[in-house]
C-alpha cells in the first residue's frame, strides 16, 4: 500500500522528471515530504505564473515534458496564463494543482477554485482525481497526452484527501485511451500527390511553423529545400528550424516579416505549409492571401487543416515522419535539381526594393536592431534566446540569426508579456552549458522580474537585456500610426532603476547608452556566474518595420 503523495512522486520519477517548477502550499505538504527523499529537484519560483513559464521554457529547450506544481485556489489560478501560453504554442507540460478535499469540493472552501473548469479550454486535457485508485493511471496518461500528437499542457488536480489516502500501487506500463490515437504517418497517396505537384511547381515556397521544431524535423526540411531548391520562410514559432544564414532562407513572413518573404509567399504557385496554422498574423486578409498557390498542408492536428485557409492537399501526420516519406518520393522523381532562376531573380528584386535597414541612433540612445545584431554576433550559434512580447520580440525575430532549433523561446500564440525571464530560467536548467539571453522591454520585464531572485537562488546565470523606451512600445507604435499620435495608457514615464532593481534581486546590473560600452559589458556578462541585467536606452519613437496592418494584405505593407 502506498500513500497518494508517494504514488505521485514515484510516477514522476518513472516519467524521468528531473525538475519541478513550483510554489508551496499547505495542501501539498505531504508531497513535499516525499520529494525530500527524491532525486527530483523542486525549483521554488516567486510567482506561480513564472513556474509555469519556466516549465514551458524547460520543455522547449529539452524537448521533454515540463512539470510545474502549485497549490490550490490562487496558486492554481495563477498558472492559467502559463497554461494558455503553452497551449497556444503546443508545448508539452504537466501541471499539478492542489485541491481541497473531495468532501469539500463545491463548498467554497478556503483556497478552492474549480481549476479543471477554469482551464478546460486552455489545456489539451485535464483531470480532477477523485479516486485514489485512478491516480497512477491519470499521471501516466497526463504525460502521454502532453507529449504525443500535437503536444500541449495537461493539468492534474489533486484533492488533499487523495494525496493522503492509500492504495495498492501499480504503475500502468501501457497507456490505452480509446478516444485518443494520434496519427503519425501521413497518407501515402497524398504524399505522392505532393511529390508530383512539387515537380511541376515553378514558384514554390516552404512555409514552416513551430511544428517543425516540435517534431524535430529541421534536417528533413533542409533536405527537401536543398533537393528542390525551394526558398523557405518561417513563422515566428518556426525560427531556428532552418539556418538563417542559408541562402534559401527568406526570413520570417507575416505582419512583421520581411517584405520579400511576404511577396514570395503571396506570389508563389505552391505553398508547402509544415506544422504551421495559417495564423492571422501570417495571412493578413485571408481572401488576398497567395491567390495563385496550390496549398499543401502537413500537420499532426486534423483540426488545423482548412481552419483558416482552404487546403488543396492536406496530410495529417507528424511533420518529421511525413517529410521522411516525401523526401523519398521526391528522390525517386527528380532527375536534376531545378535552378528556378526566374523565381530567385524575382525574390532578389523584392529584397533589393525593401531590405531590412535601420539608421544611426541619436547620442545617448542605442538602436535596438543594432543591439540584437550584436548579440547575435557575440553569442555563439547554440545560444538560447528568450523574449517577452512587443517590439523587442519582433526586432529579435527580424535581426537575430537563429541557426539551430530549440534556441528560440517566445510566446507566439498567446503573446504573453512576462514570459521571457522565467522561460530563460527553465531553458538554462534544461541546458546549463548554453548561453541564455532574455531580450525584453521595460514593460514586459516588470511583469516577472521578481524571478531574478529564483535564478540567483539556484545559481542560474543568464543575461537579461531590457530595451528601455519608457513605454509600452508596440501599442504606442499603433497609436502613432493608426491613432494620429494620440498617446494614451502607453507611457511608462516612471520606471524603476533597473540597475538597482537587478542588484537588489542578486543580479549584476548595468546601464548602457553607447555602442562600445554595450559590447564590453555584454562580453563580460557572458562569463558571469550571476544573472545579469543590462538596461539599454532606446528611443521612444523607434518602430518595428515592415508592418502589414492587422486585417490588411501584403499590398498594404508599411516599410517605414
Amino acid at each position, binding site marked *: 500500500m502506498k500513500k497518494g503523495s508517494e504514488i505521485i512522486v514515484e510516477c514522476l520519477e518513472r516519467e524521468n522528471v528531473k525538475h519541478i517548477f513550483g510554489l508551496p502550499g499547505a495542501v501539498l505538504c505531504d508531497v513535499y515530504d516525499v520529494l525530500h527523499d527524491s532525486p527530483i529537484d523542486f525549483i521554488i519560483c516567486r510567482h506561480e505564473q513564472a513556474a509555469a513559464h519556466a516549465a514551458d521554457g524547460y520543455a522547449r529547450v529539452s524537448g521533454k515534458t515540463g512539470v510545474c506544481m502549485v497549490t490550490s485556489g490562487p496558486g492554481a489560478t495563477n498558472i492559467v496564463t502559463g497554461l494558455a501560453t503553452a497551449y497556444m504554442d503546443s508545448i508539452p507540460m504537466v501541471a499539478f494543482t492542489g485541491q481541497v478535499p473531495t468532501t469539500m469540493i463545491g463548498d467554497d472552501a478556503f483556497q478552492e477554485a474549480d481549476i*479543471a*473548469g477554469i482551464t*478546460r*479550454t486552455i489545456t*489539451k*486535457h485535464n483531470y*480532477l482525481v477523485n479516486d485514489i485508485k485512478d491516480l497512477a493511471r491519470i499521471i501516466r496518461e497526463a504525460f502521454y*497526452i502532453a507529449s504525443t500528437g500535437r503536444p500541449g499542457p495537461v493539468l492534474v488536480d489533486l484533492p488533499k484527501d487523495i494525496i493522503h489516502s492509500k492504495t495498492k500501487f501499480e504503475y500502468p506500463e501501457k497507456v490505452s*485511451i*480509446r*478516444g*485518443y490515437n494520434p496519427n503519425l504517418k501521413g497518407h501515402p497517396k497524398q504524399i505522392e500527390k505532393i511529390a508530383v505537384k512539387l515537380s511541376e511547381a515553378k514558384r514554390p515556397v516552404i512555409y514552416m511553423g513551430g511544428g517543425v521544431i516540435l517534431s524535430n524535423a529541421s534536417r528533413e526540411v533542409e533536405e527537401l529545400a536543398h533537393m528542390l531548391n525551394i526558398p523557405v520562410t518561417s513563422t515566428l514559432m518556426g525560427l531556428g528550424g532552418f539556418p538563417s544564414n542559408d541562402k534559401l532562407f527568406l526570413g520570417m513572413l507575416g505582419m512583421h516579416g520581411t517584405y520579400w518573404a511576404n511577396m514570395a509567399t503571396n506570389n508563389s504557385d505552391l505553398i508547402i505549409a509544415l506544422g504551421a496554422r495559417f495564423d492571422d498574423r501570417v495571412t493578413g486578409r485571408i481572401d488576398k492571401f497567395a491567390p495563385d498557390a496550390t496549398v499543401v498542408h502537413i500537420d499532426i*492536428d*486534423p*483540426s488545423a*487543416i*482548412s*481552419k483558416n485557409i482552404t487546403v488543396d492537399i492536406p496530410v495529417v501526420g507528424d511533420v518529421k515522419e511525413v517529410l521522411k516519406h516525401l523526401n523519398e518520393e521526391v528522390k525517386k522523381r527528380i532527375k536534376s535539381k531545378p535552378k528556378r532562376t526566374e523565381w530567385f531573380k524575382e525574390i532578389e528584386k523584392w529584397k533589393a526594393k525593401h531590405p531590412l535597414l535601420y539608421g544611426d541612433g541619436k547620442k545617448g540612445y542605442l538602436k535596438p536592431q543594432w543591439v540584437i545584431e550584436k548579440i547575435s554576433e557575440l553569442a555563439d550559434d547554440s545560444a538560447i534566446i528568450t523574449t517577452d512580447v512587443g517590439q523587442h520580440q519582433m526586432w529579435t525575430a527580424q535581426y537575430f540569426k537563429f541557426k539551430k532549433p530549440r534556441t528560440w523561446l517566445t510566446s507566439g500564440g498567446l503573446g504573453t508579456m512576462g514570459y521571457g525571464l522565467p522561460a530563460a530560467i527553465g531553458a538554462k536548467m534544461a541546458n546549463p552549458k548554453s548561453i541564455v539571453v532574455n531580450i525584453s522591454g521595460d514593460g514586459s520585464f516588470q511583469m516577472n522580474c521578481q524571478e531574478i531572485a529564483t535564478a540567483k537562488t539556484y545559481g542560474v546565470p543568464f543575461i537579461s537585456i531590457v530595451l528601455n523606451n519608457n513605454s509600452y512600445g508596440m501599442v504606442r507604435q499603433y497609436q502613432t500610426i493608426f491613432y494620429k499620435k494620440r498617446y494614451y495608457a502607453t507611457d511608462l514615464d516612471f520606471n524603476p532603476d533597473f540597475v538597482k532593481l537587478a542588484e537588489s534581486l542578486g543580479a549584476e546590473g548595468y546601464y548602457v547608452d553607447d555602442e562600445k560600452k554595450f559590447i564590453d559589458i555584454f562580453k563580460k556578462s557572458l562569463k558571469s556566474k550571476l544573472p545579469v541585467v543590462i538596461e539599454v536606452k532606446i528611443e521612444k519613437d523607434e518602430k518595428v518595420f515592415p508592418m502589414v496592418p492587422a486585417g490588411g494584405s501584403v499590398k498594404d505593407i508599411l516599410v517605414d
Partner: protein
Amino acid sequence: MKHIISVLVENKFGVLARVAGLFSARGFNIKSLSVGETIDPTVSRMTIISAGDDQIIEQVIKQLRRLVDVIKVTDLTGEDYVDREMVLIKVNAEPKVRSELMQIIDIFRTKIIDVAPRSFIVEATGDNDKINALIDLLRPFGIKEIARTGCVAMSRGSKSKK
C-alpha cells in the same frame, strides 16, 4: 443548415461540459443536446443538433474529435438515419373541449398520461416535424407547460456505430 451530430463519449463527469464548452467557446448555438448511456455503461451517446454552414460544422466535428474523452463523432446529416424526440405537454382541457382534444391526440397516436379536472398531460414521441405539428395544434387550447427531451438519432440499417 441543420446538422445532427452523434457523439460517443466516455461516461465520466465533466465530459458534457467539455463538449458543450467547445460549442460555446466558438459562439455556436446548440439547438438540442441529449445524453444517455449506451449498451456499454462506460460510454454515453450525445445527440447534438446544431446549425451552421458546412465549413463551420466540419470545424466543430474536428474539434470534437480532438477531445480526449470523445470516442467517435458521426455527422448523420448526410446519412440515412432515424431521429426521435419525446415531449410532455400540459394542455388546458376544459370539459367542453375534451373530446376535440382527445381526437387530435388520437390522430397523432400519442397518449394522455395524466388527467386533472382542467388539464391533460400528453406524451408524444416522433421526429421533430411531428412534435412541432402537435404543439401547433394544441396551442389554441392553451399550453401550460412543455418538457422536450431533445432529439436522439441513429443511422439506419444493421451497421453499428458502437
